[in-house]
């Protein structure tokens, strides 16, 4: 098994930062959902990781901890991560994207 990045929505959605989306070396990997966290009263949306594209470099962790200073990203074992975003479940909209969460090992449902 291997490590992938996981973003804590509650911490990320409390900011309007978006920094890690610009620093992940991989394209289409850290995505942004403008509506994430709105049901909990957050208004800025949050970043999330399509874990099937993540190469586990942890650059985003450094950026979130040291540049954004929000400590919202942790590296987690892919089989321990629970439900998360996968490329096949991502939908792009007008200036946003969102994902139906699924388990990267077991698949959807």
């Amino acid at each position: 098994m291997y490590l992938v990045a996981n973003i804590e929505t509650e911490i990320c959605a409390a900011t309007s930062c978006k920094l890690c989306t610009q620093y992940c070396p991989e394209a289409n990997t850290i995505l942004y959902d403008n509506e994430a966290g709105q049901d909990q009263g957050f208004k800025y949306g949050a970043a999330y990781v399509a874990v099937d594209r993540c190469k586990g470099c942890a650059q985003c962790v450094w950026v979130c901890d040291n540049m954004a200073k929000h400590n919202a990203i942790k590296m987690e074992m892919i089989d321990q991560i629970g439900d998360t975003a996968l490329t096949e479940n991502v939908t792009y909209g007008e200036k946003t994207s969102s994902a139906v969460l699924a388990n990267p090992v077991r698949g959807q449902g």
Partner: protein
Amino acid sequence: MSLDYVKFTPGFGKFMPKEYRDMVEHGPFGKKVSVSQVGTFKEILEEHPMCAGCAMTLFIRLAMVAFPNPEDTITVGTAGCGRLAISQAAIPFVYGNYGDQNGVASGLTRGLRLRFGDRPKDVVVMAGDGGMADIGFAQTLHSWFRKEKFTTIMLDNEVYGNTGGQESGMTNRNQVLKMAPLGKKFEKMDMLGMAKVSGCAYVATVVPNNPRRVESVIKKAVLVAREIGPSYIQAYTSCNIEYAIPTDKVMEDAKTVETDRYKFTEYITDEAKEYLSQLYGYKEYLPKPAAAVEKQ
């Protein structure tokens, strides 16, 4: 080479992979996208085999977002790490033999101008420091002296990364590498100076720990090359494998190197300034208003 080439033949869309459909429907073609919007649209760069955490990968990703007209852009590359990613994007990629990239790009640029006239088709070379400053040195310099109108980008990781750590002309003096165990004996080559001497109209150095700046220099370099003359960008894109940088420290290294010896620099000719300000609204290059005459 136009907006139409990415579209599906009617009726075939449903058989295409999801990533392809996303790219057609939510990619950057025909739209203005910026680095600040990444994560909300489908980028043209796809998965590729470059190493995890490689700064060169990040730079290539940002460059592709920054291309002013991706639907009218052709990239040219050569042997070396970068081509592993550059070739995996939804725009045409031409593979020059090792060192031939600026020769290939010269012919390509001229051919496109014959075929399409004034309609801009942007040619962008992206190659490693070895491919550009050593093996392709003559072709690079000659394309600049001939004032070939395309953009040259050096992915400067200061080593031959793809072949396991030989020194290049762009490696720093005294640097010890796996295949340079005694340390390099001469200074890093001044390719920026040579770009200016040989007539490039726009020359910049950049480090990818500042994504917005990468975006800005790429846009300017590509636009200048359309009409004014050759442009050259030299980007510090560390090799975390050969320089043993832990992947989560790659941006820290980029920051340190930028501060110490790879500061942002920009050189632009007056002609290029006038062109960017008149045609593309770059206010920073507008002639400064004459100081108001002081009342006596």
